[in-house]
C-alpha cells in the first residue's frame, strides 16, 4: 500500500488551511468509508486530514430545535433520549447503520457527505427539514439539505470546505416521524429501500391520544379506526425515499396529496401509490426495480402510520416493531 501522511488538526480553521496548502489531501472522519476505499486501492491520497479531534464538530444542542455536529457518531445519536423521542426518524436510521462497531466511529457528516443514494440518515434529515452548516475559507454558509445533494457521491461542497453540522427546527408534540429500512438481513446491510416520513397532526387545541385499555395492545390501524370520528387532519407532512433515485429524494406529489386531509389508513395507501409513481428505482444486486417500486407503497404507508402512531401513543413503544 502506498503511504500517506496523517494530520490531526484541532480546529476547523486549521483543517481548512491544511487542505488548502496540501496536494492530493483528503478529509477523514470516522474512516469507515475512506479506509475501505484506501484498502481497496480506489483512493490513493498522499495525505489524510483527520476531523476526529476537532471539538467544534462534536456537539449536540437541543434548545429550540436540534443541532448536531458533523463528527457526532451514529451510536451517540441512536442512544440519545431526546432524539429518540422528538426526532424519532433520525434515531431509527442511526440505529440501523452498519454494525455497532461501525456506528461507534462512523459520523453523521460522513454519511451525508459520502452522499450514497442509500445513505440511511439522509431520508430522516430530509423529512426533518435539516439544513447544512458549511465552513469554508471565507466563513460559514447554510443551505437546505435538499439542495446539498447533487447526485451519487456528489454534494455541494467547494474544495476545502467542511460540513460543520446540521440544524433542524423544533417540532411540537403533535409531530411524529419514522424511518423504515428494507434489507435482506437485519444488520450490516445497505438498504434496498429506505423511506422516512414526518407527520404533523392538527389537534385543534384538544389532546389527541389513545386512552382506552386496548391502546397498549392494539395495532395503530385499529386505533385509527376508533379515532375516525375525531377527524384528525394532517397539518404538514414530509416523505423522503432513498435508493430509488440517484440521490435521496422527497416525494413531493405524495406530500401534497396528504396535506390538509383527514387521515385514514385508506388514504395512506393511496399516498403510497403516489410515492411509488414518483420513484425511479433500478435493478441492482440488492433488488429489482419492480420490487422496489412495490415496496415503496408498503414502506411509505408503514412510515406514515408509525409517525402517526408516535403522536397518538408517545409514551409507549407497546406494539412491537418486530410485527411490522
Amino acid at each position, binding site marked *: *500500500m*502506498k*503511504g*500517506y*501522511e*496523517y494530520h*490531526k488538526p484541532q480546529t476547523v480553521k486549521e483543517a481548512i488551511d491544511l487542505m488548502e496548502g496540501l496536494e492530493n489531501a483528503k478529509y*477523514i472522519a470516522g*474512516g*469507515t468509508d475512506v*479506509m*475501505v476505499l484506501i*484498502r*481497496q486501492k480506489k483512493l490513493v491520497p498522499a495525505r*489524510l486530514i*483527520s476531523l*476526529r479531534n476537532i471539538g467544534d464538530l462534536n456537539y449536540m444542542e437541543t434548545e429550540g430545535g436540534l443541532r448536531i455536529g458533523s463528527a457526532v457518531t451514529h*451510536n451517540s445519536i441512536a442512544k440519545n433520549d431526546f432524539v429518540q423521542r422528538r426526532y424519532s426518524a433520525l434515531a431509527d436510521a442511526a440505529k440501523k447503520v*452498519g*454494525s*455497532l*462497531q*461501525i456506528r*461507534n*466511529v462512523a459520523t453523521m457528516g460522513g454519511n451525508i457527505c459520502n452522499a450514497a443514494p442509500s445513505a440511511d440518515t439522509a431520508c430522516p434529515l430530509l423529512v426533518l427539514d435539516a439544513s447544512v452548516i458549511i465552513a469554508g475559507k471565507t466563513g460559514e454558509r447554510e443551505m437546505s439539505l435538499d439542495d446539498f445533494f447533487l447526485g451519487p457521491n456528489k454534494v455541494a461542497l467547494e474544495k476545502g470546505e467542511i460540513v460543520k453540522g446540521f440544524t433542524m427546527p423544533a417540532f411540537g408534540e403533535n409531530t411524529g416521524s419514522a424511518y423504515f429500512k428494507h434489507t435482506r438481513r*437485519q*444488520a*450490516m446491510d445497505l438498504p434496498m429501500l429506505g423511506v422516512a416520513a414526518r407527520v404533523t397532526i392538527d389537534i385543534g387545541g384538544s389532546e389527541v391520544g389513545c386512552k382506552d385499555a386496548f391502546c397498549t395492545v392494539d395495532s395503530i390501524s385499529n386505533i385509527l379506526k376508533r379515532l375516525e370520528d375525531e377527524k384528525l387532519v394532517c397539518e404538514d407532512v414530509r416523505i423522503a425515499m432513498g435508493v430509488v433515485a440517484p440521490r435521496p429524494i422527497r416525494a413531493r406529489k405524495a406530500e401534497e396529496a396528504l396535506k390538509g386531509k383527514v387521515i385514514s389508513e385508506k388514504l395512506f395507501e393511496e399516498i403510497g401509490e403516489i410515492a411509488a409513481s414518483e420513484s425511479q428505482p433500478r435493478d441492482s444486486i440488492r433488488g429489482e426495480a419492480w420490487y422496489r417500486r412495490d415496496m415503496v407503497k408498503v414502506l411509505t404507508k408503514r412510515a406514515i402510520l408509525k409517525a402517526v402512531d408516535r403522536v397518538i401513543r408517545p409514551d409507549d413503544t407497546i406494539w412491537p416493531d418486530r410485527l411490522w
Partner: protein
Amino acid sequence: MKKEITFTLNNEKVIVEVDPKWTLLYLLREVFEMTGTKEGCGYGECGACTVIIDGQAVNSCLYPVMEAEGRQIVTIEGLMTKDGDLDPLQKAFVDEGAVQCGFCIPGMIMSSKALLDEKEKPTEDEIKESIEGNLCRCTGYVKIIDAIKTVADRR
C-alpha cells in the same frame, strides 16, 4: 516517515514508532505480535478484528493507527486475569460450547465484553445488537448468545 505515539494497551502505557499508513490491527499483530485479534475481511464487515477503544467496540482494521494516540485500548490478550486465568466471559464460551473453529471468537468476546462492561443485565435483544457486526460461519450464534447470557445471569 515514522512517528512516535503513546497510548494505553491492556492497562500498560506503550510508546511505539508507527508508520501513519498502518491500521491499528497491523500494529497489534505485526509489531506487538498480539495475534489474538484476527484479520477477516479487512473492510469492517466481519468483526474478527474487534477491539475495545475507550470502552467502545471498534473494528481495528479500519482504525488509522495515528488515532490511537492517548486512547485506552483493550484486546483479547488484555482479558487474562493476573494469575493467567481466563475471563469469566471466555470461560462461559468454553463451557457453553460456543466455540467451533474459533476464528470469530476474539471479536465476539470483545464485542460482548464492551456490552457487559456498559450494562449490568443486558436483554437478549441488546446481546444480539452487540454482536451484530461479528460474523460466525460455524455456530449459528445460538450458543454464543447463550454463553453471553449465562455471564449476565450469574451477576
